[in-house]
């Protein structure tokens, strides 16, 4: 693959914004190359349950868009790929090095998942945010696009069991990283975001206390493709009935280098609280906030609606989380309305 490829547009990132921009440009006749570093298109949004404030199904918005992107003749898609060295040429175009990482599975894969049954290695499933396990050879997730398996070579034991069982003969351990130079006229950067690493706030005990989960882990438990068929707390698989949301965990906090508001955690927590009211009708949900930033169209109504549904909102930042022997968590905070220090017990905490 030494021939020089030329495109009108390079879109970096195959999430919802990358797909949308690629699709819009392709429909106008531009040749688009879409580069996604992950194994599948869809980005973060394909993993979400509902969107706020309309509570539309998130995957139902993303999957048709992703399929359309994948099928469009003007779009070339490279998953599990990255770009290196974007350089501006004298002509005004950009010279880009496209790096395709090896999946060790060719495109002949039918997604039958027989290899997954045979693979002996079990590791955490990053697409379920470590709530459950997956095999070292795996189809990323059920609605992945392309629906092709990949081998996680770092964890693979190279036993060759998948190679024996594969009906399409698509396992290829000889794949290597490929670098291709391409020339593009313009670049769209749609690389999305990284989630905050909650272990940077040790006093919240994420990683140490199993019943402290991230909002993404909670989100996964609320989607149709969820790992358990219910909302369960990780430590003992009990159905939680008193859930706490800790807002501003990692944002508006100079000590972790994020002094500004994420502008999203108020609203997705409100959304999850409403969904939990449906998923666990008997559960109490409490949201600990600093200021509710319901700034968009329909957001404030959405917040009021959550209050009306019985979600409790308490003003005060959680200072410290400690674990009890039964796995419940004690949250220490100052109740700003009364000015008194309080300690509340919850059986599941979402950061």
């Amino acid at each position, binding site marked *: 693959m030494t021939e020089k490829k030329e495109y009108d547009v390079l879109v970096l990132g195959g999430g919802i914004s990358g797909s949308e921009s690629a699709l819009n440009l392709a429909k106008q006749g531009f040749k688009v190359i879409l580069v996604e570093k992950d194994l599948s298109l869809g980005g973060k949004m394909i993993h979400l349950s509902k969107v706020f404030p309309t509570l539309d199904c998130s995957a139902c918005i993303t999957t048709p868009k992703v399929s359309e992107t994948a099928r469009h003749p003007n779009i070339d898609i490279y998953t599990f790929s990255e770009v290196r060295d974007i350089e501006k040429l004298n002509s005004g175009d950009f010279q880009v090095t496209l790096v395709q990482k090896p999946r060790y599975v060719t495109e002949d894969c039918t997604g039958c998942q027989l290899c997954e049954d045979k693979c002996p290695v079990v590791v955490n499933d990053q697409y379920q945010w470590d709530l459950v396990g997956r095999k070292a050879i795996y189809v990323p997730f059920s609605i992945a696009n392309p629906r092709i398996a990949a081998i996680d070579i770092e964890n693979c034991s190279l036993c060759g069991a998948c190679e024996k069982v594969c009906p399409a003969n698509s396992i290829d351990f000889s794949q290597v990283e490929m670098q291709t130079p391409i020339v593009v006229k313009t670049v769209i950067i749609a690389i999305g975001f990284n989630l905050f690493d909650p272990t940077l706030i040790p006093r919240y005990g994420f990683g140490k206390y199993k019943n402290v989960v991230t909002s993404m882990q909670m989100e996964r438990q609320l989607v149709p493709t969820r790992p358990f068929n219910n909302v369960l707390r990780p430590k003992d698989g009990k159905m939680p009935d008193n859930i706490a949301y800790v807002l501003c965990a990692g944002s508006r906090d*100079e000590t972790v280098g994020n002094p500004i508001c994420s502008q999203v955690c108020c609203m997705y927590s409100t959304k999850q609280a409403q969904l939990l009211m449906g998923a666990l009708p008997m559960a109490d949900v409490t949201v600990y906030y600093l200021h509710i930033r319901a700034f968009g169209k329909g957001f404030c109504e959405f917040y009021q609606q959550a209050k009306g549904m019985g979600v409790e909102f308490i003003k005060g*930042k959680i200072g410290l989380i400690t674990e009890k022997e039964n796995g419940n968590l004690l949250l220490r905070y100052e109740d700003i309305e009364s000015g008194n220090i309080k300690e509340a017990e919850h059986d599941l905490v979402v950061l």
Partner: protein
Amino acid sequence: MATINPGFATELKKYGALDFNKCYNCGNCTAVCSLSTGDNSFPREMIRFSVLGLEREIQKSTTPWLCYYCGECSATCPQQTDPGELMMSLRRYLTSKYDWTGLGAKLYTSKLWEFGTIAFLALVVLFLFVFFHGPMTNELTADGGVMLNTFAPWQQIEIGDLLMGGFLAFFLMSNIFNMYLKIIGSQKDLKIPFKLYFSEFWKLIVHFGTQREFSKCDTKLEQKKPALNTYWVVHWFLMSSYVIMFVMIVAFLGWFQTDNIYAWFHPQRILGYYATVGLTIGIVYFFVQRIKKSAQKSKHSHVTDWTFLVLLFLTTISGILVHVFRLNGMPQPTYYMYVFHLMALVPMLMIEVPFSKWSHLAYRPFAIYFNKIIVAAKKSK
């Protein structure tokens, strides 16, 4: 009605406060504090008062004295407003407000006053010795010691001692009374049963003697039990040494400042050595802490913190040298060092005891005592 002082932030900065106006009232500081309780939630309350400039509310409050500055609030404050340092500067501010003479405020806010007063007092001591000292004899006592009581007879020093003691006691006690008026006297709508003053009195003694609250400071809340706190141990050692030394020189000078050379196990020497070791370890430890700045509480040092440490250091080191020179029969160095010793000691006591940092030795236990009375009175109501 509450009166606000819009210039309060500017005033408090002179006492060492940083930019506490950045606070967005999340209450994180209160929640991570190991001493904050349901009855006394701090430090956010104090930050709010300071931001609003509610001076009377601050002066009415005992909470700045309940904080022993572990620095957890400052380390975890999302806005980096440094609540711990604010509490520290409020203690300096309150010290100057309890002092009705106004000298405390001058010493805290003006370096000219601070160093000027020290120099003035040191010179007074020097002049007194220049004009009134006894013969600087080179003769030695029978066991080879210096005849210090010929140069500076303890009976005469004792007169100065008692005068100074009376001065210190008068100002410190009147300041404590002023503190009482500000804290308990202002509780207009709270009826305080008289017997509480007696039933809570033992807490004053306990907290003075043990600084029990300090030992609970900086314990990790998730452990739920106090861990041994080096800061508290060193501080207690320093404080007990200081008290022993103070009592010996003010009340028992005739016994302490002797020309006899006792055996090493004599109580006079044992107590003296205990105090010397305690003071030296304490001073070195706090010096190192303030220079290293690794602990949150040692990151910011006000000029008065250094003054206190330096004066205490000079007093201790010169005291040790007087002892060494006297025992080894070196008359002239003993006399000069003795004068220098008093030139450091007198300003240290005169300035620090009633007007400055030293006074926390009295204010802290009294604040806890007053606080217990108020809490008990509220509960009985």
